C-alpha cells in the first residue's frame, strides 16, 4: 500500500488548494482531539486547580488521586466486565446468525430469496430505538428485564450484519463451493468449512464494527439494566454525573477512565477498525 501511495502522490498535482486544505484539516484534527486532551489532563488535576482561571493548560501537579478515589469508591471493574460481556456476546451472535442468513441469501437458491432479502433490508435504516417502548414491553413478557440476555437479543435481530455480509459473500467465488457440493458436502459443511474460512477477514472486521456500536448502545442499556450489578461502563460513567461529591474532577475522571482502554484498543488495532468500517462500502 505504501508503494501505491508514493506512486499516487506523484500522479496528482500539489497546488495551493492542497496546502490550504491540509492546514485546515490539521487544525480541525487538533480541535477534535482537544476535548480528549482536556478530559485527560483535567482528570490529573485536583479539584482546586481544575477551576483555576486562567486554566492550567498542562497540569501543574499531576496525580492519579482521582483515579484512586474512583476505583476505590465505584465498581468500575464490574461495569467494565458487563460492557465487555454484552458487547462481545452480542457481536458473536450477530456475526454467527447474520452470516448464516447472509450465506443463504448470497449463495442458496430458495423461493422468495430475493423478496425476503429486500423486505429484510428495507428495514435497515430503522433504528431499534424507534420501537423501544413496545420492545421493552415484550422483553418484560419474556422476563428478560434486568438480564444481560435481554440487552443482547434485540440487537441480534437487526438486519445490519446481513446487509454487510451478503455483499461480502456475493464477492466470494462459487467454484470451491460447487466442487464441495459435488463431493456430497452438506450446505452446513460448506458454510462452516469453506465459506467461513474464506470470509474470515470480513467477519473479523464486522466483529469490530458491531462491537463499537454495542459499546455505544446507551439508551437500551439504560432502560433494561437497573440493577447495580448489571450496570455497564457507559451507565456507570453517566451515573457518576449525578453524584454529589465536592471533587470537581471526579466526573471527568470517570469519562477518562472509560475512554483510555478503548483508545488503546483503537491505536493497537487501527487497521482492523479501518477494515471493519469500510467493509460495508465494498461494492459489487
Amino acid at each position, binding site marked *: 500500500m505504501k508503494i501505491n501511495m508514493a506512486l499516487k*502522490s506523484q500522479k496528482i498535482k500539489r497546488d495551493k488548494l492542497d496546502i490550504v*486544505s491540509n492546514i485546515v484539516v490539521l487544525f480541525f484534527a487538533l480541535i477534535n482531539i482537544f476535548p480528549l486532551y482536556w478530559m485527560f489532563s483535567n482528570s490529573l488535576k485536583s479539584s482546586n486547580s481544575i477551576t483555576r482561571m486562567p486554566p492550567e493548560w498542562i497540569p501543574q501537579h499531576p496525580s492519579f488521586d482521582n483515579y484512586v478515589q474512583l476505583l476505590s469508591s465505584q465498581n468500575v471493574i464490574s461495569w467494565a466486565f458487563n460492557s465487555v460481556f454484552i458487547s462481545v456476546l452480542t457481536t458473536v451472535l450477530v456475526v454467527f446468525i447474520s452470516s448464516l*442468513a447472509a450465506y443463504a441469501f448470497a449463495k442458496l437458491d430458495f423461493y422468495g430469496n430475493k423478496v425476503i432479502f429486500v423486505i429484510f433490508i428495507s428495514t435497515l435504516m430503522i433504528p431499534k430505538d424507534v420501537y423501544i417502548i413496545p420492545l421493552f414491553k415484550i422483553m418484560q413478557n419474556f422476563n428478560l428485564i434486568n438480564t444481560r440476555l435481554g440487552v443482547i437479543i434485540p440487537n441480534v435481530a437487526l*438486519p445490519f450484519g446481513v446487509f454487510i455480509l451478503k455483499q461480502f459473500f456475493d464477492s466470494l467465488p462459487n467454484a470451491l463451493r460447487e466442487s464441495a457440493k459435488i463431493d456430497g458436502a452438506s450446505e452446513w459443511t460448506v458454510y462452516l468449512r469453506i465459506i467461513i474460512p474464506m470470509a474470515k477477514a470480513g467477519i473479523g472486521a464486522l466483529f469490530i464494527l458491531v462491537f463499537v456500536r454495542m459499546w455505544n448502545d446507551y439508551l437500551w442499556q439504560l432502560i433494561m439494566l437497573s440493577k447495580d450489578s448489571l450496570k455497564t461502563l457507559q451507565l456507570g460513567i453517566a451515573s457518576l454525573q449525578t453524584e454529589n461529591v465536592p471533587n470537581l474532577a471526579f466526573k471527568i475522571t470517570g469519562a477518562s477512565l472509560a475512554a483510555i482502554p478503548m483508545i488503546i484498543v483503537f491505536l493497537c488495532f487501527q487497521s482492523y477498525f479501518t477494515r471493519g468500517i469500510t467493509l460495508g462500502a465494498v461494492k459489487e
Partner: protein
Amino acid sequence: MIYKAKLKKEFLKQKDGYLFILPQMLLFLVFMVYPVFEGLRLSFYNVGFVTKTFVGFRNYIELFKDSIFIKAVLNNLQFVLIVTTLSVVFGLFISTAVFDKTSKYMSFIRGCYYLPVMITMVAFSITWLWMVNPAMGLVSHVLNSIGIQNVNIMGNSTVALYILIVVMWLFNLGEAVILYLAAIIGIPQEQFEAAEIDGASRFMVIRFIIIPLVSPTTFYFVILCFIDVIKVFLAVHLMTAGGPNYATTTMMYLCYQEAFVMNNMGKASAIGMMMFVIVSLLSIIAMTRLKAKN
C-alpha cells in the same frame, strides 16, 4: 397426490436456504416486526402504572397540538440533515486532502477524527458539557478573556441546539473520514494517470474523478449516519435535559420522558410510531435518490 410429492421434493431441495435464514428471521419477526405492531396498538391506549384505557387517536391528536413535539420533530430533522450533510462534505474534504500523503500522516488524521467514537458518546458528551459549563467551563473562560462577559452559550436556544449538533457531527465525522479514505485509496491508478495527462488541476480531479467514484461510499455512509443520528438521545439527556425551555428536545428524548418520567407508555408509543413513519419516509427518499444517482 402428485402435487404433494412435488411439494415435498421442492421443500427438501430448498429447505437448507430456509433453515439458514430461520434464526435471523425468527429474531427479526419477534424483536423487530412484532414490536412495531405492538407499538401501534399501544399508541391507541392511555397506559398508566395500573390502568390501560383505549383512547383511539387521542395520543396522536395531542402530539400534533403540542408545540413541544413539533419543536422536537424539527430539531430532529435539523440534526439528521445538518450532521449528515456536514459529515459527507467534511469527510470528503478531509480525505481528499490527505489521501496522497504518507501513510503515517493518514493514520494520524484518521485517529484524530475517529477517537471520539472510541471514547464513546457518554464520555464525549461529558467532556463537552464540562467545557461549556457556564460557571466553570473553558469556553466561558475563553469568551470572558476576549471580553464577552458572563454569557452562557448553552443558554441561547439556537446556539445550544447547534452545539449539540456539532457534538453529534464530530462524533460521526470519524467514520466518514475512514470510509472515504479507504474508498479513494481503492480508486484504480489509471483514473488518476488519465487526469494527469489531461493536466487536470487537483480540484478538477477531486470534483470529476474522486467524488463520482466514491458515491457508493456516500450512499453507505448516509445510511449509517442516518441511523445513528435520527435516534439522538444521549447528548440531549446528558448535556441539556432538552433545555433551555425545550430548545434542544428531540423525539427520542421526548419519547423517553413520556414513557419513563411521565409514565405514559401510550403517548410514548405514539411518538415512536411517528418516528417510525418519519424514518420510513426519509429512508425511502434517501434510498431512491441515492440509487438513482448511482
